[in-house]
């Protein structure tokens, strides 16, 4: 690992001043950044430890939402009573990711900004437009079993790896960003960008901005929600396909629906198309299947990942069926 200067920021103003240094990066739990620094993929000159910032609380918002500080650990958020009762899909999504040790270290802010697990991204001898703009994408025509079928471009087919972000996308979460210029708020569904011609630009965050919080709006339908993750082994693996869903039906008709997908797209994928099909439709297997097909209609497979299309359709249908028959995970 390349050497670097280290400083620990005691408060937000200090952190925001320090990030102006050339080559400076914030350090959360370090579970992604330290790993990538050791592989020489990330090479910061200064590392600003933000884990002592007073942004580690989960607070109630007036009106019933929650404000989650950016330094709240993944494990603490998943274990939080209000999250388990009011947003069970979020607790499940976090618990489906990584391991107990990693979740104890990982922060909410860091989870939002974790980099892709595409094998070519960390292979310094391979072409990867995300790591080295203009070097090509070796996943196209290469090992692409894990690649995206939605939201990809000719320059990048890498999936966004986060489980937590899939639930946040379904929940209409809002990301709060702060810099010396002030505070701004970006909806999670607009926070991660599609790769287009610039896959190296992954999110809306500016180089000098700090994620300070994620806000969860009051969302009664979320109390009946679930997260389903399908992977190569039962635990401790990234998603091939995942589904975050919340649904409310009255007299057999769907009156509220939130749906998002993971593992299949270049960003946490809010399934707007399926939601449009489902709202007002009868809560039946037939509706679920039609909506799933509609969402995946635009899917473009690579040479090895075509199976994800049917798998995603089945996972959507199964998750909605389970919500209907068993209710949410809480």
């Amino acid at each position, binding site marked *: 690992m390349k050497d670097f200067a280290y400083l620990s920021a005691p408060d937000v103003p200090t952190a925001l001043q320090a990030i102006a240094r050339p080559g400076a990066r914030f350090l959360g739990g370090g579970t992604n950044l330290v790993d990538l620094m050791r592989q020489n993929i990330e090479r910061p000159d200064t590392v600003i430890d933000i884990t002592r910032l007073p942004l580690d609380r989960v607070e109630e918002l007036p009106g019933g939402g929650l404000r989650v500080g950016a330094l709240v650990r993944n494990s603490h958020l998943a274990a939080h009573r209000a999250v388990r009762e009011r947003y069970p899909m979020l607790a499940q999504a976090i618990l489906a990711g990584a391991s107990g040790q*990693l979740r104890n270290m990982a922060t909410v802010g860091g989870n939002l900004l974790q980099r892709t697990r595409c094998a070519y991204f960390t292979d310094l001898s391979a072409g990867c437009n995300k790591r080295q703009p203009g070097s090509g994408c070796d996943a196209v025509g290469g090992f692409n079993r894990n690649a995206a079928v939605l939201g990809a471009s000719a320059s990048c087919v890498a999936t966004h790896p986060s489980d937590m972000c899939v639930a946040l996308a379904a929940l209409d979460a809002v990301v709060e960003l702060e810099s010396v210029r002030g505070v701004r708020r970006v909806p999670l569904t607009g926070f991660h960008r599609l790769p287009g011609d610039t896959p190296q630009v992954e999110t809306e965050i500016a180089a000098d901005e700090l994620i300070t919080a994620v806000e969860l709006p009051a969302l009664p339908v979320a109390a009946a929600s679930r997260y389903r993750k399908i992977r190569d082994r039962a635990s401790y693996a990234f998603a091939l396909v995942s589904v975050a869903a919340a649904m409310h039906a009255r007299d057999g008709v769907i009156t509220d629906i939130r749906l998002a997908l993971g593992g299949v797209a270049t960003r946490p994928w809010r399934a707007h198309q399926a939601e449009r099909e489902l709202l007002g439709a009868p809560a039946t297997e037939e509706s679920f299947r039609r909506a799933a097909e509609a969402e995946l209609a635009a899917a473009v497979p690579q040479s090895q990942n075509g199976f994800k299309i049917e798998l995603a359709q089945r996972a959507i249908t199964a998750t909605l069926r389970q919500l209907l028959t068993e209710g949410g995970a809480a």
Partner: protein
Amino acid sequence: MADVHLRINGVDRRLEVEPRVSLLDALRERLGLTGTKKGCDQGACGACTVLADGERVLSCLALAVQYEGREITTIEGVADPIQRAFVRHDGFQCGYCTSGQICSALGMLAEHAAGAPSAVTEGLAAAEIELTEAEIRERMSGNLCRCGAYNGIVAAIQETQETRVAERDVPTLVEGRR
């Protein structure tokens, strides 16, 4: 160089390290505490698990400087009935993953006792979660065992949990324990 102070297994230790030195390398190479093992050095195997203020973390992805002032427990600082349970149940073969398994299990049992759910918990809002075999396997999935001693590991953890629960029901024993 950074001056780092850590409290390791109850002893105050000071060391000068470059910021890029991991907690794992600081423990093994600077402090001679080689009980904590390096398997993958990338967060994937759990061999390097230690407890930081009682919470299990991966020392290979931890920069030593970031843990300034923290209380670190390594296998050298563990004296718990779980160790004998691992021996009794053949919870290892080569032993390379064992120190990580034991530190991880201690952290996991504390998480469970504090009411934390897991990915296999049915009914997330329930106040009490029974630590079934499926719960143990899921909660320990961050610790790989190349020798495949998983059945013994699970049995050792189950026995430890059962003993703890039994002791908790006998009030006089609670204070004397650990």
